[in-house]
């Protein structure tokens, strides 16, 4: 009895702790002010830049991450554990560290950047840098989920497909990937959400230029000092997207087979 009561109290306190701040966003702004903010250039620029860059970085993560996840789920090769650890690293790495690391690699005088500079290619403080920062921090979310989904596909289906004449390519595209589909989609959505929320690495490596590198989180940080309505409006949009992400992942990961 006392135990149940204790759990109930702890649970309510925690739920309030999570929901009150989110609800406060909605309580602190009038609907008209919210609508008005949506027409402001700083908000629109950030919104479109965020959606475009997060979409591109998710596509890049999927293109590179899918074969990597499949290989690591199916083949044992020397150094596989090292590859696994390295792909997971960005999850635990503080974004500020990712930011300065990317700058040291791709900045104008960076390890790679100094050679790109010879060809007149500058990455740091451009939209490309925004995308690179997002790919760096978001990739593990997709790769981990994709690897787990591939591991969950029974090898028997792949063996059966091969006895029926399917090449390794056909097996991957007609059997393994379709059977892992739900997990791949939810991994891509999580990766997209992480890319959308990326702040630390972006502001250090890409800077904070409206229309070019100022994504939504950066715009919230910037407008908060002057136009609080714009900051709250952007925050509300991100909250709505976050809810949509969670809901979509829940629906997609419901097992069909």
């Amino acid at each position, binding site marked *: 009895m006392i135990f149940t009561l204790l759990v109930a109290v702890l649970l309510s306190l925690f739920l309030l702790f999570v929901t009150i701040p989110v609800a406060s966003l909605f309580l602190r702004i009038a609907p008209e002010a919210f609508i008005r903010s949506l027409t402001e250039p700083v908000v629109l620029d950030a919104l479109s830049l965020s959606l475009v860059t997060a979409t591109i970085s998710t596509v890049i993560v999927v293109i590179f991450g899918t074969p990597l996840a499949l290989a690591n789920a199916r083949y044992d090769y020397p150094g596989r554990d090292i590859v696994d650890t390295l792909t997971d690293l960005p999850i635990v790495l503080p974004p500020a560290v990712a930011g300065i690391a990317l700058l040291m690699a791709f900045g104008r005088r960076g390890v790679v950047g100094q050679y790109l500079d010879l060809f007149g290619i500058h990455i740091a403080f451009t939209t490309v840098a925004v995308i690179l920062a997002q790919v760096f921090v978001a990739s593990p979310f997709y790769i981990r989920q994709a690897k787990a989904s591939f591991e969950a596909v029974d090898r*028997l289906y792949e*063996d*059966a497909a*091969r*006895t*029926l*004449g399917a090449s390794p390519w056909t097996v991957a595209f007609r059997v393994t990937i379709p059977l892992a589909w739900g997990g791949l989609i939810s991994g891509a959505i999580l990766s997209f959400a992480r890319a959308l929320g990326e702040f630390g690495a972006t502001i250090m490596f890409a800077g904070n230029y409206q229309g070019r590198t100022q994504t939504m989180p950066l715009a919230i940080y910037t407008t908060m000092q002057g136009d609080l309505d714009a900051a709250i409006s952007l925050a509300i949009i991100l909250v709505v997207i976050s809810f949509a992400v969670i809901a979509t992942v829940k629906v997609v990961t419901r097992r069909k087979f």
Partner: protein
Amino acid sequence: MFSIHATRQLRDFALDVAFSVEQGETLVLIGENGAGKSTVLNLISGILAPDRGELILGERTLFSSEKGINIPTERRNIGHLFQSYALFPHMTVAENVAFGLRCRKISKPEIAASVAEHLGAMRLAELADVNVGRLSGGQRQRVALARALVLEPELLLLDEPLAAVDMRAKSAMRKELRVQIANAGIPCIVVTHTLQDVRELADRICLIEGGRIAADGAPEEVLGMQENGFIASFVEG
């Protein structure tokens, strides 16, 4: 005509088997669980490779450690039915049967015609668009068989073909299977645990014990080896 001589080190013992199967002949493999029966089928279809040995199907050498030949599974043209049937759960009955044809350079109308013909022959025509998750054990068995036979394989491997079929349907399914195998007219290797399967399907029996062939001969001959512990309990039921 198919012949195999293969060795492979397994976890507990070394598998070392040699036998051949004539055109139109059905060889049944019996033996304790874990004796290596399913492994033999995997070695033949190419899912596993022998450490040493040679596999010859008709005119083709599928595997030869001496000559360095190892034809990949997808080019062996061997029908392999797994114990659980391994029907693709994300496809309908017709899509499962069409899968192998789609892997080959065959036109869509030809695929459709061939699939329809085999579904009809297996009494599956009405289930063509049903997802395989909704089939009974017997229906799954027929889909798996149709999926393999539609490719006109040169050898048929059946791993416990009736294990997942309901008791009541088993006897009829077994007779039907006998007819399907006979119609295919190719060598066939069946792994089973049940005496009825042996009596109905076997032209010849191989008894596998600890990875080796302990007996190879006509059914009445092998089943008559009452001094063998496995055979004695097998025939007793």
